[in-house]
C-alpha cells in the first residue's frame, strides 16, 4: 500500500519533469507564429522600440499596441480562467485541453504581451498535468499487477528473503556487464570524438603521459569492478554458509601498498620530467622565441606583436582610454611599432612565447589542440612557450574538415560571456607568416599619436604623473 501511494506520487513528478524538458508539443503553435513574426519584423522596423522585440510574442505585442487595452485584459482573464478550470478539473480528458488550448491561441493575438506569456505558461502547466494523469494511470496499473503477484507469492509461502536477496546480486552482475560494455562503447565512440593528437611538440609528451595513465587506470577500473561486483554475486547470502572470519593478511596488504607505490612513483617521475621540460625553458630559448602578448578582458582577447624591434612597449593599466583600450604607454618608444592582430597567427615549427595578461578579471588562455593552458591574472604576467608542429592546412587535411580551425578559448569563469570568448589560432608556414606580419596595423594610429602628442607636451612641461592624471 505504501508502494501504491508512492508510485502514484512518483509518476506525478515524473510527468512534470518529462513535460518540463520536452514541452515542444505545447507550443508548437506559438513557434510557428514566431517564425512568421520574424519575417514581419524584418519588413517593418517600427517594432524596434518595443522592449521585448526579441520575444516570441512580437505579433501579439504589435497588435496590443494598436488594440484596445481594456478588452485585452478581459480576454486575458478569460484565458486564465479557462486554464485554471482545466487545471482543477483533473479528470477531464486530453481532447478537452486541446480544445481549450486551441481556443486560447485564437484569442491570444489580442493579448497584452505579459499576459500571453502567463497564459502560455499556464497552458503548458495544464499540459503537464494531463501527461501526469495518463502516465500515473499506466504506472498504477503495473504496480497493482506487481503487488498482487507478490501478495500471492507470500500467501503461497513461496516468498523468501534469500530469493529477493539473490535478485539484487544478479542485478549487480547485470550492471557489471552493462558497465563494461558502456566503458567499451564510450572509449570507442566518445573517445574517438574527443582525442586528437596534439599539434605541438610538448603536447606529444603530454599525450604519451595521458595514454600511459589511461591504459593503467582502465585496467585497474575494469579489474576492480569485476572483483567488487563479482565477489558481491559469488558471496551473496546463502542459507547454510557462514562467512569466513578473515580480519587481515599482512602479506597481501603489503603487496597492495607497494605495487601502487611503485606505479605512482614512476608516474610522478615521468610527469615531473615532462613538466620541467615544458616550464623550465632556458634563458636563451626564451629570448629567441617569437614573442606574442595576449590580453584577456570581458569577453574578448586582444593580441599584440612586438613589431620589428622584437620588444613590447610598456603597458600601464592607468592609461586605458576608449581609444587606447590596451592601455599601452606610448611614451615608451618601443611601443610605436607594436602590431595589433585580429587573430593569433604563428609559424609552424618555431618556438613561440606567449605573454598572458588580463585587463580585468582572471581568464584562462586555453588552446586544447596544443595542450596549452595558462591563467591570465590581473596584475601579473604569465608565460607559456611552445612549438606548433602542424599548420592549420595540415590539420584540416588530417581531420578531413576544410573548415577546421585551432581555437583559443577562455577556461576560467569570467562572467556572462565566458562561454564565448574565443580567438582563432592560425598556424602557417614561415613565408606566409612574414607576409601576414607585414599586413598588420600598428597600435600607434594617428588618433593615438594625437592623444599622446598632447601628453608628450605635457610630459615635457610637467611630471609624468600629471600626464597620467590627465588621461584619467
Amino acid at each position, binding site marked *: 500500500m505504501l508502494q501504491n501511494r508512492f508510485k502514484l506520487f512518483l509518476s506525478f513528478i515524473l510527468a512534470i*519533469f518529462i513535460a518540463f524538458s520536452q514541452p515542444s508539443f505545447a507550443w508548437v503553435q506559438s513557434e510557428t507564429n514566431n517564425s512568421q513574426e520574424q519575417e514581419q519584423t524584418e519588413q517593418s522596423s517600427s517594432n524596434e522600440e518595443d522592449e521585448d522585440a526579441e520575444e516570441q510574442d512580437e505579433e501579439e505585442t504589435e497588435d496590443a499596441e494598436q488594440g484596445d487595452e481594456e478588452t485585452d485584459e478581459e480576454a486575458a482573464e478569460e484565458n486564465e480562467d479557462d486554464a485554471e478550470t482545466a487545471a482543477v478539473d483533473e479528470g477531464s480528458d486530453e481532447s478537452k485541453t486541446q480544445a481549450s488550448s486551441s481556443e486560447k491561441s485564437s484569442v491570444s493575438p489580442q493579448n497584452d504581451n505579459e499576459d500571453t506569456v502567463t497564459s502560455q505558461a499556464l497552458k503548458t502547466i495544464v499540459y503537464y498535468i494531463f501527461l501526469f494523469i495518463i502516465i500515473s494511470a499506466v504506472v498504477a496499473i503495473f504496480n497493482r499487477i506487481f503487488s498482487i503477484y507478490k501478495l500471492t507469492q507470500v500467501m503461497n509461502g513461496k516468498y523468501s528473503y534469500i530469493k529477493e536477496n539473490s535478485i539484487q546480486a544478479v542485478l549487480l552482475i547485470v550492471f557489471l556487464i552493462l558497465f563494461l560494455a558502456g566503458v567499451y562503447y564510450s572509449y570507442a565512440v566518445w573517445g574517438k570524438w574527443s582525442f586528437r593528437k596534439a599539434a605541438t611538440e610538448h603536447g606529444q609528451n603530454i599525450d604519451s603521459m595521458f595514454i600511459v595513465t589511461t591504459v593503467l587506470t582502465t585496467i585497474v577500473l575494469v579489474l576492480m569492478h569485476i572483483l567488487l561486483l563479482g565477489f558481491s554475486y559469488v558471496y551473496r547470502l546463502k542459507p547454510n554458509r557462514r562467512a569466513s572470519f578473515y*580480519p587481515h593478511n599482512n602479506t597481501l596488504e603489503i603487496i597492495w601498498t607497494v605495487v601502487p607505490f611503485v606505479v605512482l612513483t614512476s608516474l610522478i617521475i615521468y610527469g615531473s620530467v615532462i613538466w620541467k621540460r615544458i616550464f623550465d625553458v632556458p634563458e636563451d630559448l626564451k629570448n629567441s622565441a617569437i614573442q606574442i602578448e595576449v590580453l584577456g578582458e570581458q569577453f574578448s582577447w586582444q593580441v599584440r606583436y612586438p613589431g620589428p624591434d622584437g620588444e613590447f612597449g610598456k603597458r600601464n593599466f592607468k592609461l586605458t582610454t576608449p581609444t587606447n583600450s590596451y592601455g599601452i604607454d606610448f611614451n615608451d618608444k618601443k611601443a610605436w611599432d607594436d602590431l595589433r592582430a585580429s587573430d593569433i597567427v604563428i609559424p609552424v615549427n618555431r618556438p613561440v612565447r606567449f605573454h598572458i595578461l588580463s585587463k580585468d578579471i582572471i581568464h584562462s588562455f586555453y588552446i586544447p589542440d596544443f595542450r596549452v593552458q595558462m591563467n591570465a591574472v590581473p596584475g601579473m604576467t604569465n608565460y607559456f612557450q611552445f612549438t606548433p608542429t602542424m599548420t592549420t592546412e595540415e590539420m584540416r587535411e588530417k581531420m578531413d574538415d576544410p573548415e577546421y580551425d585551432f581555437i583559443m578559448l577562455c577556461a576560467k569563469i569570467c562572467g556572462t560571456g565566458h562561454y564565448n570568448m574565443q580567438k582563432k589560432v592560425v598556424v602557417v608556414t614561415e613565408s606566409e607568416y612574414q607576409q601576414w606580419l607585414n599586413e598588420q596595423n600598428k597600435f600607434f594610429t594617428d588618433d593615438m599619436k594625437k592623444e599622446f602628442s598632447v601628453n608628450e607636451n605635457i610630459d615635457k612641461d610637467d611630471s609624468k604623473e600629471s600626464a597620467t592624471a590627465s588621461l584619467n
Partner: protein
Amino acid sequence: MSSTAITPEASFQDSHEEKQSFIKKYVFSTDHKMIAKQFLITAIIMAFFALLLSILFRIQLAWPDKDFPVLEFFLGKWAEGGRIKPDFYLALVTIHGTIMVFFVLTAGLSGTFSNLLIPLQIGARDMAAPFVNMLSYWFFLGSCVVMTASFFVESGPAAAGWTVYPPLSAVPTAISGSGLGTTMWLLSIFMFIISQILGGVNYISTILNMRTKGMDLWKMPLTIWSLFITAIVGLVSFPVLVSAVVLLFFDRSAGTSFYLSDLVIGGEILPNEGGSPILYEHLFWFLGHPEVYIAILPAFGIVSEVLSINSRKPIFGYHAMVYSLMAIAVLSVIVWGHHMFVTGMNPFLGGVFMLTTLIIAIPSAVKAFNYTATLWRGNIRFTPAMLFAIGMVSFFISGGLTGLFTGNATIDIQIHDTYFIVAHFHFVMGSASMFGMLAAVYHWYPKLYGRMLDNQLGYIHFWLTFIGAYLVFFPMHFMGIDGVPRRYYAFTEFPFMEKWVSVNILITWAAVIAGLAQIAFVWNFFYSMRNGKKASKNPWRATTLEWTTEVKHIHGNWEGEIPTVYRWPYDYSKPGHPDDFIPQTVPHSETMSSNLLQDFHDNEEAIKIQKEWNKENNRVESES
C-alpha cells in the same frame, strides 16, 4: 507522557522524564539525537534545492536554443522569454556547488552522523557540550537561510563559481551576482564556519574524553575513527577559510586591495594596486582541498561499517584502514596546490604538489582493496544500505582513478577547468560521498526513527541513482578531454563542441531520472517515520554499542548504566561461536569457544586461562 504528543517521536519519550515543551524538545533541543535529525532534515531539504538548480541548468545545456515559457513563469526576469540568462546560469551553478559541498556533504554528512553516532557508539550519554552543539546547528540553519535568501535579492545570488575567486567576486560591475548576492554568500559561509568549528571541537572532545569503560581507541568502530579525523581536519582548515572570506569582504566593502590590482573593468579604471588574486586561491584551496576530504572521510567510515555488517565479516585490515585515514588526512593539507597548476606558480612548486597529490592515491588504493577483500568469502545481505555502500566503493574507484589524471600536473594542463574535472569530482564527491551518506541513512534509520525504511523503495532508489549517476558523469570525461571548459552556458559558439549537444541531452535525461529517483527516497523517509515497520532493537545484527540502546529515544541513551566494552567491533562469523556476531559488550569469558589468542594481546594471564580451557575442551585454534 508528554502532552505534546503530536509527532511520532512523542511516543518514544521516556515516561521517567520530566515534561518538555514542544519548543525545547523539537526546536531548541540539546539532545544529540534530535540535533542529528535536525541536521539531516535540513540537509535533505537543501540537497533537493540544489538538485532542482542542477536540473534547471542541465535543461539549458541540453536544449540551448529552445524556449521554455514555464521557466519565465517561475523565474521571471532571470529567464526572460523562457531562456535562462547566462548570469543566472552561473548563479545556479555557483549555489548548486556551494550547497552540495558545504551544506549537504559537510554539515549533512559529518554533522548528522557525528551527532548521532559519536555518543551512541562510544557509549556516552550526550555530547561533551550539548549547548554548543545546539548552537552549531543554529548557525548552520542560519547560513542555509541566508544562502537561500540570496535568490531574492534584486541583483541575484553569487555567480562567481563555488570557489568565488576575486576579482570576479569582488567587483559588482564584473557580474551582477557580485553585488549583494556575494555579500550574503560570504555571510552565509562565515556562519557556516562558526557552526563547523563549534561542532568540531565538540566531536573531538567527546571522543577523547567520554568513551565508556573498555572503549580504548583501538576498539572504536571505523565510523568513529573517521568522524574523529574529519573533525580534526576541519579544525585545521576552516579557520583559514575565515581569513580568506574576511579579507574578501574587506576588499569588497572597505576598499582594501588584498586580492585586487591593475583592474580596468567595463572601461573603468579601479584604484586598487598591489594585491593578488593568487593569494586568495592559496587561502581558499588550503581549506578547499581538505574540505573535499571532509566530505569523503566520514563516508569511508560509514562504508567500512556497513560492508562489514552486511558481509557478516570483519572489515579487512582494520589497522590499515585507520592508518590510511590518518595518512589521507595528513596529506590532504599539503596538496592544495594541485588546483593551481596553471595559475603561473613556480614550476618547482608544481612538481612538489604533483608529488604529494599522487601519493594520496596510495592510502586511497589501500582502502579500495580492503573494501573489496571484505566482500571476499562473505555471506552478503543486500540491504539498501549495503547496495549504497557497494556503489560508493565503485564510484570511489572510478573517481579516484581519474584523480591520477587531474593530479598529474602535465595532464592537468589539458584538462584543468574542463568537464573532466567536473566528472572527476562528481564521482569522488558528488557520487561516492553522497552514496556513503545515503548508506548511512538507510542503515541508521531504525536508530533515528525507531522504524524501518521500505526495502522495495530503497532498491528502486538505489538502482536509478546508481545507473543515473554513471550516465550523467561518465560521458563528461570525454568532453573534458576534447577541451570543453566547465561553467559554459552553452556549447553553441564553437564548432568543435556541437557534437556534444546530443550527449548533453542524454546526460540531462539521466539527471532527470536520477533526480526523480530521489523522490522515492524522500517519500520513503518521511512516510516511514510514522508508518514504517517497527524496528527491533538490533535489526542488522550488529556488534556496536548503538544497537544496545532501547528503540525508544531517551535522554541519556541508556536506561541504566552505560555498558562496558570488551572487544573490537568486528567480531562477525567468529569460528566457534554459535551466532554470527558477538556484540562489543560480551566479555571474552562468555565466549571461550571462539576466543583467539591474539584477542588478548599480551595479557599473559588471559592467554593462560584460554589455553587451559582449550586443552580441557579439545579445541584446536585455527590460525587466521
